[in-house]
């Protein structure tokens, strides 16, 4: 079997997917988890573009279009995730403040 660039980039894409997955599962911080999801997404996109590349003779534009769509979807969900993470964080902060206040009064 000859190793073509397709294989190399494809495997890299899969590896990135796995690395992102590991980060998603193992990292504790929310921000890090969101980063990990983005890395996973990049891995999938890389894999898709590799498929489009094929053997380099005739580029298939359909996966390119899919990746473009995917990128926009991904930035959208990242924005939502970050906004939500901000809220979770604020909430914890508020709760801390309230606890402190309660303790002070008590």
């Amino acid at each position, binding site marked *: 079997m000859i190793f073509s660039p397709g294989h190399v980039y494809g*495997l890299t894409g899969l590896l990135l997917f796995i690395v992102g*997955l590991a980060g998603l599962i193992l990292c504790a911080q929310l921000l890090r988890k969101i980063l990990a999801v983005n890395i996973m997404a990049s891995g999938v996109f890389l894999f898709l573009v590799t498929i489009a590349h094929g053997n380099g003779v005739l580029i298939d534009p359909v996966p390119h*279009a899919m990746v473009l769509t995917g990128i926009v979807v991904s930035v959208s969900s990242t924005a*939502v995730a970050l906004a*939500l993470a901000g809220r979770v964080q604020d909430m914890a902060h508020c709760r801390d403040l309230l606890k402190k206040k309660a303790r002070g009064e008590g």
Partner: protein
Amino acid sequence: MRACESTGHRCGRRLGSLLSLVMLAMLFAALAWGCLTGGAPSSGLGQSVDAALHDSGVESRVTAVLLNYRAYDTLLECFVLFLGVVVVWSLRPYRPQHPDPPIGSILASLVRFLIPLMVLVGGYLLWAGSNQAGGAFQAGAILGGAGVLLLLASSPLLHVLPKVLLPGAICLGPLFFLVVAVGAMVLGGVFLGYRRETAAIVIVVLEAVAAGAIGLSLAALFRGSRPEETSSAQARTDALTQEEGQE
């Protein structure tokens, strides 16, 4: 005693991580197996795309896929962006956001210089999209970047678009796309089915509007909460006390 427990906990946790790493490695092996073995991959749709390119109204293959063959995906994707804005706007912050740090005067003048340039680049990408790399997405992204810079610099240019009109502007992209798609259905009988002779012009207009909408939505996503509501965030800390009790 407690220290002992915590080390035990840490050990357990480390073991857990190790185990999941091993499983992930196995998953990778499986994926690689799926990727590498099993005959020649199919040739894809490159040829059929080329064969139909003449009817699509554009010369760029990717644009043809995005805005003609698979325009439905792109339509829905515009709605994903719109949805992102709706969700982000629905998440009002509990506490006031920190005011942006004052921006340096150098950056401010840089922004003033950069914005027209970015708009220009965006326009170029849009135009280039019909026959080479570039198109609505890329142009929209550049415009979005310009919006982000404006926000960062709190530039007076921001007030070109009154806040009241912002929701309307954000709706405009998806709405226009939808109208075009339905219009095609009413005129030609098929949803999103442009006629061959008008396809080129429809796609160009569509791209321009989509780029604008994408840019605006991206900037809005960056901006975070709904513009007129940031002032009311102050009250949220108090509301939280009640909400914890309720529900």
